């Protein structure tokens, strides 16, 4: 068995003295693991840092074997990732989310979205909306997508500002008003404006609260996963930077 593909490095784990088990999100073969001979050597280790895009060749005798990877760097992001706390937290968060996907099942949109986010590392104002959208994508790919197209109660496409925590569907301001305290807020950037111009921190916070609720309910809690700490730190750091940027601008 042999194939070639592009992949995004998610993690590397030491195996023995010099080898490594590489976990990648590939374009055509989904999340995939494989052994890299000499993966912990000073020559190969830099290429296998999380966030890097690599050209991969996977070989195994049988399809269900772990197999061996050879990897070559296509785009190295480790320099930025290791020096910027937010970039580091973002790459870790992406990897943790992609770990929720089953192994060896292609998820083209996830690979493309994750790779695109890695090219935006360092752009704080864009990072909130794109990460919220990525979390929605992960929910959608695993069968728990939210329906934000029209109001669940009236069918209208106008003035959608809530999401029902029960159904995961959008609700208009009028229909949701009586239950406003129980509704989740739907940030405008998920519907129209991709880049919030005023109070970006509040919209981003609402966005993460929305996705966080459904991630916890459908994915983290049923699997007994505690991703809360790393995700909370990322959100706190991102919101702090957005507020600082806003203060500087005014």
């Amino acid at each position: 068995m042999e194939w070639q593909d592009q992949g995004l490095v998610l993690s590397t784990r030491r195996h023995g003295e010099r080898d490594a088990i590489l976990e990648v999100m590939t374009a055509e073969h989904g999340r995939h693991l494989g052994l890299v001979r000499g993966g912990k050597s000073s020559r190969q280790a830099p290429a296998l840092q999380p966030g890097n895009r690599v050209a991969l060749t996977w070989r195994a005798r049988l399809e269900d074997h772990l197999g061996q990877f050879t990897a070559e760097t296509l785009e190295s992001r480790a320099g930025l990732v290791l020096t910027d706390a937010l970039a580091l937290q973002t790459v870790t968060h992406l990897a943790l989310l992609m770990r929720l996907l089953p192994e060896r099942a292609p998820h083209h949109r996830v690979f493309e979205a994750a790779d695109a986010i890695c090219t935006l590392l360092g752009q704080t104002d864009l990072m909130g909306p794109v990460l919220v959208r990525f979390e929605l994508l992960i929910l959608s790919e695993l069968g728990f997508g939210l329906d934000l197209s029209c109001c669940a109660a009236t069918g209208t496409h106008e003035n959608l500002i809530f999401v029902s925590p029960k159904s995961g569907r959008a609700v208009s301001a009028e229909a949701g008003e009586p239950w406003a305290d129980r509704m989740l807020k739907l940030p405008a950037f998920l519907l129209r404006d991709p880049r919030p111009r005023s109070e970006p921190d509040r919209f981003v916070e609402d966005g993460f609260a929305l996705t966080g609720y459904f991630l916890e309910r459908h994915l983290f809690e049923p699997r007994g996963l505690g991703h809360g700490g790393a995700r909370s730190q990322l959100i706190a750091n991102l919101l702090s930077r957005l507020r600082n940027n806003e203060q500087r601008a005014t």
Partner: protein
Amino acid sequence: MAQALAGPEIERLIQLLGRLPGLGPRSARRAVLHLMRKREELLVPLADAMRVAAERIVTCDNCGNLDTQSPCTICRDSRRDPSILVVVESVGDLWALERAGALRANYHVLGATLSPFDGVGPDELSLPKLVERATGGAVKEVILALNATVEGQTTAHYITDLLTEVGVKVTRLAHGVPVGGELDYLDEGTLSAALLSRTTIG
């Protein structure tokens, strides 16, 4: 199934030595054969040294280093600069820095690094003791000598935030071109880290 070459005591010795880093079953057999040949000069003193070490090795209550006394030899050394505290992940890293001999400072061994992938959180690290040592007043600078990996740098950023309120200077090791390194042969990640961490000459 492979046939036993020797008695169970020797087979057990081969099996145990084979678990050591850098040794496999084959090299363990060679080592045991060598020990048996040099029984009086090597095997007996080695067994004795290992028994004594096993009885006496303790974790230093102050820094987390492994030694036969607590506080450890490094913590007791009065010639070290008490104003500098070097934070490392493991005793192996401490030994590596000591081999370099560039700084005579005190150390703090964390015991691990934060890894959301493996579920290693702040509670698994020796952080309360680090904050306590940094708060004492004697420490003026904390050097984060952690690996240039996602786990190492995640830990570095976390400790930096933790020590913000303490008011000590926090620095980290530079990332960049190794001694003897030729730019043409370096990977893009190392080169971009080196450019981002460039320093003024003169």
